[in-house]
């Protein structure tokens, strides 16, 4: 589904990703862990197509397409979704309008008819309930003044509405209370399907207990230095990152 080979990228002339290799097959859930500043968000945003990140080397194939040649919107239309670590506040654009515009953009790209306001409301009501969000949030400006946890819920809602083939969650489990964590975990679990893959960036085991990953990768200084099954995450929890780098 997603094949990353020797991906290198830099921001403002500083090399951040120094050669990433990663293959994700349909149905799999991969986890990326790694210390602050190791490049996890940069990897996620390189895949999503942030324009101030310069890809200096490597290739990314996504569902048979050269992902790096696509614009950010074309990537989304191809089925890629990134739940941002720090979702942007958009004063003046309601959550509802944003979601509707986004969904209709994807539908249009797929050649499906756009949904009108009523059809759209019917479409999302169930999902709003699923993330246990108060419907009043839909009328509020997107993310504006949302608490940390509410922003993460809003990202999950967007993911459920847009129904991606490949979802990247960048620390969507950070800063959540126990109930919100459950919402996020259930949201992610509900997305788990044989034809869909998920890449989760996290610092914690909590999410991994509810949502068992297939493979855990450790990102260190722009490279994946170790991959393993979920026991790797537990080992990290106990021993920190030191033992890995000492060996490396």
């Amino acid at each position, binding site marked *: 589904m997603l094949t990353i080979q020797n991906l290198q990228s830099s921001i403002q002339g500083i090399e951040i990703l120094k050669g990433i290799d990663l293959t994700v097959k349909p149905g799999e859930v991969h986890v990326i862990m790694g210390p602050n500043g190791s490049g996890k968000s940069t990897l996620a945003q390189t895949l*999503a*197509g942030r*324009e101030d990140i310069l890809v200096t080397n490597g290739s990314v194939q996504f569902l048979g397409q050269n992902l790096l040649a696509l614009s950010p*919107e074309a990537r*989304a*239309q191809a089925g890629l979704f990134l739940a941002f670590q720090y979702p942007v506040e958009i*004063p*003046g*654009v309601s959550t509802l309008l944003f979601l509707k515009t986004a969904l209709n953009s994807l539908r249009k790209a797929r050649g499906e008819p756009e949904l009108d306001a009523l059809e759209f409301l019917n479409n999302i009501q169930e999902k709003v309930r699923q993330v246990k969000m108060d419907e009043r949030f839909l009328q509020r400006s997107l993310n504006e003044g949302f608490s940390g946890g509410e922003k993460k819920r809003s990202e999950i809602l967007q993911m459920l509405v847009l129904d991606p083939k490949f979802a990247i969650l960048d620390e969507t489990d950070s800063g959540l209370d126990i109930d919100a964590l459950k919402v996020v975990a259930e949201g992610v679990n509900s997305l788990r399907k044989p034809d869909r893959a998920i890449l989760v960036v996290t610092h914690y085991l909590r999410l991994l207990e509810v949502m068992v990953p297939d493979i855990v990768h450790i990102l260190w200084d722009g490279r994946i230095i170790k991959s393993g099954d979920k026991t790797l995450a537990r080992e990290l929890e106990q021993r920190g990152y030191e033992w890995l780098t000492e060996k490396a």
Partner: protein
Amino acid sequence: MPYYKDSTVVVFVNGAWKKLSKKNGSFTNHGVNIQCLREWKDRAQKPFLRYFDRLANKQDLALVNGGCGIFLPACHKATAPIHLFFYSEGESVTYYPRVLVIAEEKSQVTLVEHYVGGASKGSVVHGVSEIYVGKGARVAHTQLFYEESRTVQSSSVWAKQDEDSQFTSFVLSMGGERTKQELTVNLSSPGATCTLNGLYLVGACEEACHHTKIEHNAPFCESKEVYRGVVGKHGKANFNGKIVVEEGAIKSRASLVNKNLMLCEESEINTKPELEIYNDDVVCTHGATVGQLDEQALFYFRSRGIEPQQAKKLLVSAFVNEEMKHIPAPILPLIEKKKENFFEIGT
């Protein structure tokens, strides 16, 4: 012409009084006296005479070839808004529309001045509006400059407020080669409050200029001002907002905000808030910003599959929306059209 339900409409062509709600001549609507200003002046009618000596722009009266006088006797509340339409006809005409509003004690009125170029080319319009807001009176004043043609228009609005009066002003300028509004509000007696809002949408190669001055001449007065602007390619906007608080105007409260959105590097925006405060017992705040569309916000939209053009439109709308609540509903479709134009030629 956008259709305004239930309002009293006066139409002026090249500044000359043409018709008033299908009738000619003066008109009294629920006690509001609306008259051709020239007749008012020539016949030296009472309400006018009483204010004549106080007029700030007496010399301009010589040029008045129509104009509009609106008189509200004490305690009269005009139930219907008054809409004045100023049309231009023919090529390269110049005219000086003149509006005089006298709102006596505790009266109320909503007034819209709407300037439309129509089919004319190269016309020059210099308007002067003078508004007296009597003790406890409320006047809501709106000026709309909507031009499709190459027109140069300028307008001076001057309002004087008595004790405990309220004055609200909204100006929308979009289109026209050059548009300039100068607005002066004089808070002359204690307890007067004014709220000034403005929105300018400056398209490709257009220029808009807004100068405001609020004079706090008496204690316990309050002024609030917010102007917002969007400027397209090679467009130019100037904003100058001055607040003067006189020595005796203690307990004054004043706030001034000007926010600008530049759609590309080739736009020019100059903004200058100025405070002149001559006593210590006041609360004044001011701020001005000039920004471009937020790249992070744009990326956020695009990462959800939204095309950049549409993302930009939504972001510009969001910026403009903050001022939308001041805009009369019939004008909204025109604004939508203007926003479309931005993306065809303005960015």
